């Protein structure tokens, strides 16, 4: 196996995730797309670790990223619930409090 094939796979997943974050209206779907991005990063990390013999640190950091991602989903969904409770809607298109 070559390193490059993993890198390309992870790039593709990352870009799909970015597209999802930018284009989806539903906040839960945006959070899912963020998960795609985080997983793409993890693949990169593990592949580089396996490539240059530093597998252990790479795995440790991948584990840490999984932990952070779990925290992120928890807080993210809590935010979505709050938005939903306040506006009966989780359409990011209509959540435009930043508009002046």
């Amino acid at each position, binding site marked *: 196996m070559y390193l490059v094939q993993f*890198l390309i796979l992870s790039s593709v997943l*990352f870009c799909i995730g970015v597209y999802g974050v930018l284009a989806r209206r539903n906040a839960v779907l945006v959070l899912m797309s963020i998960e795609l991005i985080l997983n793409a990063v993890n*693949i990169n990390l593990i592949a580089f670790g396996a490539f240059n013999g530093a597998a252990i*640190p790479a795995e440790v950091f991948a584990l840490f990223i999984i932990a952070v991602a779990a925290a992120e989903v928890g807080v993210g969904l809590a935010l979505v619930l709050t938005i939903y409770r306040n506006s009966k809607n989780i359409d990011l298109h209509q959540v435009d409090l930043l508009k002046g």
Partner: protein
Amino acid sequence: MTATLATAETVVAQNVFFYLIAAVMVIAALRVVTTSNMVHAALYLVVVLAGVAAQFILLGAEFVGVTQVLVYIGAVIVLFLFGIMLTRAKVGAEDGLSHDNVVPAILTAVLLLLVMGFAVVDFAKAPWSDGTLVIDALDRAPTTVEQVSDSIFSTYIVAFEAISVLLLAALIGAIVVARKE
């Protein structure tokens, strides 16, 4: 170097499985961001996450692969399904899950892919890489849980403690944010 090169080129099964899993992952990921049914999106995400776990195992990172299955597929997806349920999304297909930002989003994503692809190819062509960049994971034993835990609790103990505090903070934060007044 030639030995590992041979390994990488001759191990057909590994490569076949890689491309098979990769193709499934990419298709499923595309469905996650395009499907008009939210529950389907969550289920396609399961496929992608399982594919990621499989790639981890291919790379010899078995513990991470198992953790991926337990944490992501076991817990995070359930959270997502709860999120979909609590926000009362329609169970069936739904219009307008993507909006008018689609074209700039596609442009950005494709641009990003081009830049990253260029970087990867450029990196592979770097003079020191010899053009091969072989992962010789097969020549080594997979890492064991023991090694990983030793590392976490000695070298990376500070980072581990920081992650613990972060999880606690996220726990409290999620409760504070989501509780009813």
